[in-house]
């Protein structure tokens, strides 16, 4: 095992987003807070999703998780496409890094970015509305698994895309709809039966539902099921991503 190699690639990926923190950390936190202000203001008092939980408080975990997902995805995908387009990916490909080391470095860096942004959104949000934490283990577990899954999806998208607009397409037509239609802004119980069923096919739904369970101790789906769904999807995507790296898909001729 080339642990130093893995750790170096991980640090490089963290440095990369750290150097442009305004754009990679602050901007998403501000965006999430805008959602909170607008939706929270409009809908507060009209909806009670879980008994005893106000809408604003209900909204916070959803927004945190959405930020985690989108930023973890953005980190691995944009780093890969940038180094592919600039050609500097070659320096990583010349190094004695295994497929697994390569994959793990990109995903752990994505997890770090996801968690930093998520924590930022949470810390600023609780200035406006108290959000209790019922089960910290569930909060941590779903945040880590969720960001790992989104980071893995980012690796897949970054390997697949050849141009920035293909990546933007992936983001706009896959990531954004899946994260918006996963119960960030509502409980899926308020949906008609067909859309309730459809939501259960969306892995992001389980991430947000399990994550919310960590805060309120209640959820639309039993947390064990959510854990299985998120963990299972992560493993499937990870296998696909490692397979792509191993075969050199679009990176080795």
């Amino acid at each position: 095992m080339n642990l130093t190699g893995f750790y170096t690639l991980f640090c490089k990926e963290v440095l990369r987003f750290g150097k442009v923190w305004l754009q990679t950390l602050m901007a998403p936190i501000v965006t999430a807070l805008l959602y909170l202000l607008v939706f929270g203001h409009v809908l507060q008092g009209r909806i009670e999703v879980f008994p005893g939980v106000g809408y604003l408080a209900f909204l916070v975990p959803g927004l945190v998780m959405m930020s985690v997902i989108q930023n973890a995805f953005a980190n691995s995908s944009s780093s890969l496409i940038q180094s592919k387009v600039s050609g500097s990916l070659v320096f990583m490909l010349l190094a004695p890094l295994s497929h697994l080391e390569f994959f793990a470095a990109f995903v752990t860096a994505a997890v770090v970015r996801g968690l930093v942004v998520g924590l930022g959104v949470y810390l600023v949000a609780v200035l406006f509305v108290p959000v209790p934490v019922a089960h910290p283990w569930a909060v941590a577990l779903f945040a880590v698994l969720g960001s790992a899954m989104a980071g893995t999806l980012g690796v897949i998208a970054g390997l697949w895309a050849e141009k920035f607009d293909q990546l933007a397409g992936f983001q706009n037509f896959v990531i954004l709809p899946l994260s918006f239609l996963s119960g960030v802004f509502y409980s899926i119980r308020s949906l008609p039966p067909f859309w309730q069923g459809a939501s259960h096919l969306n892995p992001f739904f389980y991430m947000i539902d399990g994550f919310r369970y960590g805060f309120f101790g209640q959820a639309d789906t039993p947390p064990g099921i959510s854990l299985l769904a998120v963990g299972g999807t992560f493993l499937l995507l990870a296998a696909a991503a490692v397979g792509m790296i191993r075969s050199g898909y679009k990176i080795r001729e």
Partner: protein
Amino acid sequence: MVPVSGPAAIAVAGLHKRYPGVHALRGIDLEVRRGEFFGLLGPNGAGKSTLIHVLAGLARASEGSARVLDHDVVRDYRESRRALGMVPQELVFDPFFTVREVLRIQAGYFGLGREHWPWVESLMAVLALDAKADANLRTLSGGMKRRVMIALALVHRPPVVILDEPTAGVDVDLRRSLWEFIRGLHRDGHTIVLTTHYLQEAEQLCERIAILNHGELVAVDRREALLARGIGRRLRLNVTTEVPLATLPEALRARVTAQEGTRLVFELHRDRDSVVGVLDALRDHGARIVDVATEAADLEDVFLELTRGDVKMKPQINAD
């Protein structure tokens, strides 16, 4: 030079590479010995970079095998990549980092941590990059970026170094200093493989030269032997006459390649034609010769002849 024993620096056998619609390498067999200064020549699209990419693991062979210091580039990729430093043909760089950062990061990829940082500093000093150590790569000139790429290839102290056109687009001064630098690496015991389109460069630096054309090796030989091959067959004869000739002797018409005023150029075959015969024929034709000069072939002639397309030669591996 001290003879070096042990496995070949580079060993390629039966190597084919097919891209959709392009058969880029058509059965390459090649060995580069340890400590050798080896030149890889060929026209654009011949397959030089493709061959190098297979060795570096950037491309996968369709058939055949490639080894670096006896490590298979696919099966033992960690060892083969540690043994190899490769300078890619294109100028590429990571716009997020400074010179010192990219070098330390690259060393880290190879498993080399802080204890290796003094070497990074000395590498920057040798390549005159130390003044720009904390400059972002974006802000460097092309020649500087080229030197950073060379430093990146050497950061893990590889015994085998492949440079894919390191002097392309580089000014005369930098080219000379790169030559000196690469010669120094060779003196220190590195195996060097160099591709270039400057034949003079290969002629001055390389001990052994392979010529690749359309994905096939058309020659592999010691520089002197390769030059002798050209000299053995072709000889250029420049003749200046007192007054321009209106006509040429029948026998010489097929041999003349240029006629400008009083100057005549003949392409002769060393074995079949005789210089004296040509001069005699001219005199018999009434010409008064005022100057005669002959030129031996240089690498360019050999190269052109071998890659002209109509000439196909069996690869000829010279044992020493």
